[in-house]
Every structure is written in C-alpha cells, then in structure tokens.
C-alpha cells in the first residue's frame, strides 16, 4: 500500500489554475522527485503537502490518514527550504532543537537528540555558532539537521541545492542520497534540475503547467519518455528530435530523415504497430546513441551510418560532443574523446536505433 497518496489535487490562485488534478502515489521509504520548469506547480504541490498552501480540492493521505485539515505542525512532516530558513537569532543547536522545544520535549532529551543528529551530519563543532557565521554548505547541513531531528513520517525538500556552487552541489547531492539509503526515509524532493532528479529519485514525476506529464523510475523516464516535453526536459545534452517520414517497402518500414528520401533508417524496434505510409514522425535519439563507428554497441540490432557535416566540436574530457548538420537539420552526437573529428568536414555518424523513440508530431506523445 502507498504511504503517501496525492489524490486529484487542484489549486486555483485567483483565476489561474496552478495544479490541474495531480495524482501521485509513493511507497514507504521512497524518494519522489517532482521536476519541471519554473512555474510548473511543483513548489505549490510541495507546499500543499506541507500544509502551507491548502489545495482547492483533492486529498493528501499519509499512511492511511487524510491530513488535508491538519495544521502543518501536526502533519508529522519536516521541510528543508531553498533558503534554508535558519532562525538568524538562534545558534545552530537552538535551531535544531526548536521543533522539539515547541513540542515540549524535555531539555535533556532535546540535547541528546541534537547531539545525535549533529554527529550524523558532522556538524558537532558548529553547534554554538549562529547561521550568519556558517558557509552555504554548513547552513544546508544544519537545515537538514533541523528536519532529521524530528524523525518525521515524510521529508519535504524544496530545491535544497540551488543556492550552492556547482562542486558543493554534487557533494551535498551525494550526501542526501546516502542519507536516504541509510535512514530509509520517505522523501518528496522538488527541483528544476533534471540531473538531481535522475540521480536521487526512486520515482520521478515530471510536471508541466500543473499537469503530470509522466510518472516513473529514472530509467523509464529517460529511456521511454511519454512525450516530447519529457524527452526534451530530461537528459543533458537534450535528446535529438529529428523530423522524418514513414516509408513502407515490402512489409518492412523505415523512416526517411532530414526531408531526404535518400537518407533512411529502419523503423526502431520499439515501434510495434504498422504506421501509415508517408506519416510525419519525430525520431528521438539521445546523444549517446549517435556515435563514431567504434563506439557502436555490438549487440545493436538496428543501426545506420549517416555522413553529415561537423559544425561544432565540444570536448568534455571523458568524451566529445559533436554537432552534425545535414540538409538544414542539426543533431548532437557523443563520440569517444580520441576520435579525429574536424570542424567543417564530413564525418560518418553511427546511429543506434535500438534505443530510439518515435513521437507523433501532432499530439507530441510517443508512438513507440
């Protein structure tokens, strides 16, 4: 049975509907990431779960208990805010103990709990300091400590890493992941960063304009995006979207690309239905499925080799992103870093169609 259930949540502010009927389930110990561009309603949904912004309709259920009408403090949740929201007038120790103090926990017990949490987060030496004397990473850790000390049923994280610099962000991200693995806490996490979503989640919910676009594991979301929006939003560099037309020849179907009858690739194996001849489709290919010949998966069933002009080369060290252009359409390929690619020359790109996905350009949803 699900531990956290979000049932048909709607939220209207003025005449604008921010959330348009959201349904999500999360099992106990799950790590749910709400991801989407700004303004998609993900923070509104988190605030609704926290009780800070009551939804217009719908139910929120934790462990079988409907919590719609409970005050935030009675929901047994803890929240880590984007700005950390540490009380500036209190020491780290007082910050962490504040929730316990409000709940009337004895002083001795409070101190023991704070010590325990400080040890887990390795902030014991900071307990007597004030938030203004801490670095960004330390503040972030104190904010997590404040949530941890409560041992709540659900943790809520509102873009907790967005105020950290790139290096620290990766470190703290790993810490949060380790924390989840060690404590088996149930977490709802909001971010606009798709890499955070991929690395942390056991379940991802992609939101756009107040509607759920797709719910799934990171692998499902990445490999089988439900529509063009999810395909484009998740993954960096973004998925290549190539316009094509269905070509049928003697029972076998293929797709002609770049508006060029001469360039054809076999229909990806994921498409199981027969598509009408001449139908417009969009072929979605992750950059790692377009490579140099040496990197092609030897087990691939459907491949194609297409020569295209090289218009940009971006070495990252571990591998090189090459932008190819053919008949006015460009795409990004991921090649080995030691492959000789020269700007302005033609390069034979290998397309692995096993992992390609096909979208209907009109509805935007995936065909196969």
């Amino acid at each position, binding site marked *: 049975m699900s531990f956290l259930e979000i049932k048909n949540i709607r939220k209207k502010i003025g005449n604008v509907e921010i959330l348009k009927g959201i349904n999500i389930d999360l099992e106990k110990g799950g790590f749910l990431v709400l991801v989407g561009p700004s303004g998609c309603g993900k923070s509104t949904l988190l605030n609704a779960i926290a009780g*800070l912004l009551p939804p217009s309709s719908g139910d929120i259920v934790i462990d079988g208990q409907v919590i719609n009408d409970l005050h*935030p403090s009675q929901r047994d*949740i803890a*929240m880590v*805010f*984007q700005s950390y929201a540490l009380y500036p*007038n209190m020491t780290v120790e007082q910050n962490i103990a504040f929730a316990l103090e409000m*709940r009337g926990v004895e002083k001795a017990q409070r101190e023991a709990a704070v010590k325990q949490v400080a040890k887990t987060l390795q902030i014991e030496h900071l307990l007597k300091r004030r938030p*203004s004397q801490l670095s960004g990473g330390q503040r972030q850790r104190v904010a997590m400590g*404040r949530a941890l000390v409560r041992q709540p049923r659900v943790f809520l994280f509102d873009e907790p890493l967005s105020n950290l610099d790139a290096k620290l962000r990766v470190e703290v991200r790993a810490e949060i992941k380790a924390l989840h693995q060690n404590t088996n806490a149930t977490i709802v996490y909001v971010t606009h960063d798709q890499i955070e979503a991929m690395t942390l989640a056991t379940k991802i919910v992609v939101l756009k304009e107040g509607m759920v676009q797709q719910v799934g594991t990171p692998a499902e979301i990445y490999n089988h995006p439900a529509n063009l929006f999810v395909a484009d939003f998740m993954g960096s560099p973004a998925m290549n979207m190539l316009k094509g037309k269905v070509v049928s020849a003697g029972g076998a179907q293929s797709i002609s690309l770049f508006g060029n009858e001469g360039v054809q690739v076999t229909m990806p194996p994921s498409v199981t239905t027969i598509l009408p001849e001449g139908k417009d489709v969009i072929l979605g290919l992750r950059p790692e499925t377009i490579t140099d010949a040496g990197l092609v998966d030897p087990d691939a069933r459907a491949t194609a080799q297409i020569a295209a002009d090289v218009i940009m080369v971006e070495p990252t060290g571990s591998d090189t992103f090459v932008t190819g252009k053919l008949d006015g359409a460009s795409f990004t390929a991921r090649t080995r870093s030691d492959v000789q690619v020269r700007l302005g020359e033609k390069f034979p790109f290998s397309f692995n169609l096993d992992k390609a996905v096909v979208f209907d350009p009109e509805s935007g949803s995936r065909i196969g």
Partner: protein
Amino acid sequence: MSAANETVSAGQARVARYFIYAALIVLALVYLLPLYVMLITSLKSLDEIRGGDMLALPGSPSIAAWVKAWGEACIGVSCVGIKGYFWNSIKMVVPAVLISTLLGALNGYVLTKWRFPGHKLVFGMMLFACFIPFQAVLIPMARLLGLLGLSNSTTGLVMVHVIYGLGFTTLFFRNYYEAFPDELVKAAMIDGAGFFRIFWRILLPSSGPIIVVTIIYQFTNIWNDFLFGISFAGGEGSPMTVALNNLVSSSTGVKEYNVDMAAAVFAALPTLFVYIVAGRYFVRGLMAGAVKG
C-alpha cells in the same frame, strides 16, 4: 600622461574635501551656537546677563540657576521647580513609547506575515494617521478622553500618544518585516510555533535596528510634544514641555534668563540621552547585518 592626470585629480579631490569639511564645521558651529548660549547663560548670574555680552563666558560659573530651576522656580503659582513635571513626562513617555512600539511591531507582523483580505486598505488607513495634523484631532480626542474618564490624566495622555504614534510605528515595522523572509515563518509553523511564539521567538529578536529607530523617533516626538500636553493634561499633571512654557511665561518680578535656560536644558537632556545611548546600538545593529551578510 595618465599619471599626471591622476595627481591633478587627487589634488583636486583633496581641495574639495577641505572645502566640504570647512563647510560642515561652519554649519555645525551655527547649529551649536544656540546650545552654547543656553549653557553659558544658565551658568551666569543675572547681573552678568544684564551686562549684555551674550557670547562671553561666565565670569564666575555657578549652578545656582540649575538648582533653582529643578526645585524652586515658580511655575504658575506654585514654586516647586520643574522636577515634578520632569517625572510627569517620564511617566508619560516610557509607557507611550513601549506600548506604541510593541503594537507597531505586532501590526507590522500581521500586515506582512498573516495577510488577510483587505490588508492593504487597513495599512493605508493606518498610514493616514501619519498625515492628520494634530490640531484636527484635538476636539474629538478631548471628547473621547472625557467619555473614558481620562481627561487631565497621564494615562489619557499615554493613550493619545500611543494612538497617534501607531501609524508611524506600524509603517516602520511593516517595511522592515516586508523584507523578512516568509520561509522563516513557514519553517517555524512546521516546527510547531504558534502566532505569538513566532513573533516573540523569531521576528522580535531579529528586529533590533528597527526597534531602536522606532524608540528614538517615538521618544523624541512624545517627549517634545507640547500641543497634546497642554490640551489634555493641566496643572500638576502637565508634562515638561508645558511646564517649561509656564515657567518662561510666568511674570513675577524679574525675568530670570539663567533659570529659564537651565530648565530648557533639563527639558532637552532626555532626548539627547536617548540619541547618544540608543544611537550607538542603532549603528551597531546596521553594521552587524552589513558585514556578516
């Protein structure tokens, strides 16, 4: 070439600075001149004052005028000095400042963190209080005090000053709390703190600078008020400012300028004290925020 230019401009900057400092010193002297005259006159004997040289230092300084102003000078018909009125003012200004500051803080808290429909209108109406001239409310206020049985009492005067000060104190605190992060209030709510607990434990301890600003402002205004004092408190209950006026305008025999001046210095001391003591905390509060960031 650029080096030469820099030398020239550095020289020009120095000249400009000398000029600015000179202007500041001259203006400060002009501003301080009345205080100087007050102080030296209060230390002179009446004969010396009649001698005519206003700016001359006293030949034999004496604090006799101060003693007289404090304990013996005639205010109206009773010759007991200004000390009773001084305490009247203290009894009025301390509660009035504290209550109006606290209520202003509470108003600011509600108007920014617990917004309700129409909060802008309520705030607008409170602001209106800042623009109503004192004179316009005298008669309605007198009527109200009469109805409440608070005419001619220090309590009544405290009430008038609290009401009149609320507009300003609310304005100060609302603008200060407007910049106070909402997330802190949300975090405290989740932590289980209620309305007043959030105010006492989270907002108020972070309000040092604005509390000091409000106290300086309110203290100066209320202490220096004359109109409300003379309108709503008479005789023995008058505040210092009214007593000073009565002292100066009491005409029994000779005009004792030295006593008048000493009494005026007494009247100015508390505001000066508040500026010197609280002003330092004010600057310290501002600096703390600026440096730690």
